């Protein structure tokens, strides 16, 4: 078995917050607090969860948009969380990103041609000027945009088209992994379908691995291989698509799935309505982080933090209930 493309071991990212008059850094936001997973080549792993669960922070840590507090990020056998800038530069080519907002993630002053050419030049991928031109036009074909559009600037495009430009820019570097941070969330239904289909086609064509960060569970189910569910900086359940959607084990996963309104009028469903709000990641609850909202909470949950344990072939969940003999 070949080693995974990406390996994340016990990743932690704590952001200091300034408090008080003298800005002493005394408190931390525990945005990501011990997360581990792997992504194989050509695989899609989705990170799902609600606002503030740390899913975007995980994505950014992998891109090394900031230094992590502790843990390891290993790309193709090589640690990148502490890599020297010169080696990091080459590693950056292999991991690219598509952001949520296609309006703010493209430079409004640059023409599409320059947006796409920049990563190619940066990483020295084109042998000549002609080669660069060929690559840029090919990228436009790949993301199904007209070649004439190369001379236009981002404001002349619709949201869906801009997102395609963002995808083309990510592809320009010939990456092996693309982090899609809510990449289709801002798009309208019909356009979203176009971009989702495009991402799936590209994955097939180039054997890309995707880290798909999203809160839209229906889209995730449609396009993922595996799913990791996050809550307050921790993974509470990780499993292949079928297991997550057919037989979720963690109470939070169950609640999350049941809360999604179905586009079927009169559908019989009994949503598990969780009370209250997600607690603050500044002072996460002791014991199991979900215990303040969990319908099945018992004493042990309040004091002892559950760890991820295998509950199925490739299914892992962090819940004390799994130790209780099933009646």
């Amino acid at each position, binding site marked *: 078995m070949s080693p995974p493309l990406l390996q994340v071991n016990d990743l932690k990212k704590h952001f200091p917050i300034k408090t008080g008059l003298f800005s002493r850094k005394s408190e931390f936001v525990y945005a990501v607090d011990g997360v581990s997973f792997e992504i194989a080549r050509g695989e899609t792993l989705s990170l799902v969860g609600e*606002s503030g669960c740390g899913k975007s922070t995980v994505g950014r840590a992998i891109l090394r948009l900031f230094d992590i507090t502790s843990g390891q990020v290993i790309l193709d056998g090589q640690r990148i969380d502490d890599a020297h800038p010169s080696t990091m530069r080459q590693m950056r080519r292999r991991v690219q990103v598509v952001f949520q907002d296609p309006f703010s993630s493209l430079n409004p002053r640059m023409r599409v041609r320059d947006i796409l050419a920049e990563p190619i030049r940066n990483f020295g991928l084109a042998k000549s000027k002609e080669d660069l031109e060929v690559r840029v036009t090919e990228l436009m074909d790949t993301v199904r945009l007209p070649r004439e559009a190369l001379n236009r600037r981002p404001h002349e495009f619709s949201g869906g088209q801009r997102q395609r430009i963002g995808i083309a820019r990510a592809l320009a570097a010939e990456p092996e992994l693309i982090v899609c941070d809510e990449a289709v969330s801002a798009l309208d239904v019909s*356009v979203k379908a176009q971009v989702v289909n495009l991402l*799936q086609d590209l994955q097939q064509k180039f054997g890309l691995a995707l880290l798909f960060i999203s809160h839209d569970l229906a889209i995730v189910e*449609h396009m993922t291989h595996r799913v990791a569910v996050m809550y307050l900086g921790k993974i509470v359940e990780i499993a292949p698509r079928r297991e997550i959607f057919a037989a979720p084990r963690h109470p939070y996963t169950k609640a999350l799935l049941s*809360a999604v309104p179905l586009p079927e009028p009169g559908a019989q469903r009994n949503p598990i309505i969780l009370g209250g709000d997600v607690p603050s990641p500044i002072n996460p609850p002791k014991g199991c982080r979900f215990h303040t909202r969990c319908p099945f909470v018992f004493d042990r949950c309040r004091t002892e933090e559950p760890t991820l344990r295998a509950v199925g072939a490739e299914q892992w969940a962090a819940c004390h209930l799994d130790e209780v003999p099933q009646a």
Partner: protein
Amino acid sequence: MALLEVENLQTHFRTPGGINRAVDGVSFHVNEGETLAIVGESGCGKSVTSMSLMRLVPEPPGRIAGSIRFAGKDLLKLSDREMRAIRGNDISMIFQEPMTSLNPVLTVGRQIRETLMIHQGLDKQAAEAHAVEMLTLVGIPEPKRRVREYPHQLSGGMRQRVMIAVALACNPKLLIADEPTTALDVTIQAQILKLMLDLKHRVGAAIILITHDLGVVAEIAERVMVMYAGRKVEEAPVAELFRSPRHPYTQGLLGAVPRLGSSLAGTATRLAEIPGQVPDLRKPITGCVFAGRCALATDLCRQYAPGLEEKGPRHIAACHYAAKGAVAA
């Protein structure tokens, strides 16, 4: 009986690039106690329709024409003063973003009190007591403490509950909810949808729900109106619309949404795409507004705009080719 009757509503905006026909000849009605959903994608005119009902469209550059009859009065003919007596009293509104639609420097109690004191003439004590009652009604714990708090001290879900409390304070006959759960997380969305359903039965207000989320529509609407490029293209009772959509746009919209459970049902194949984009509303459109993206379009569609025709019981659609009476595949 119809509580609200909108006839040929046209809301146009003067822009440097020409006149933008954001809403172009839309007619509909809402019965007492009924929930009507208006669905469509960005720029289809659903929000402008709701702003027009409240007369919140800035004039100029906007211009509203047509008629909006609410409880026998044409809202477009009222003076500003008369209109003010209706807003927040007979018709009230919930917006998408509770952080920007609540005043950050006033306590939530004061914001609920304000409507009560202006419209119902309550004194401060009575209004305060009623504010606490309203917060209890929308399920905010410790309402007596919360009335004294500011919006930033509340979470997103709580703020949306406060918005609903403000909107319902004067027992409106019509509540307009513009994307009320779009900014919320799923578990919080489930709480708010449950709250809206409960309140609907208890308060009995008619609701116009504006959303792009077909799941939310299926959950709480009774009737649905689909808008595209400023026009109404289809309208039907909710079950009928989801079961047999007649307009190609509605069919496309329903096909483009992935469903939860698709991987188990083995239906996780390709999503249906609607090719192309929404037309530019600043240019006059001859023919059907959807013709440019429609697989069925012919010269007839490009030349003559189809009128809204009856396609089934209480089911109308604007398409030359949508079969009458037949159940679409």
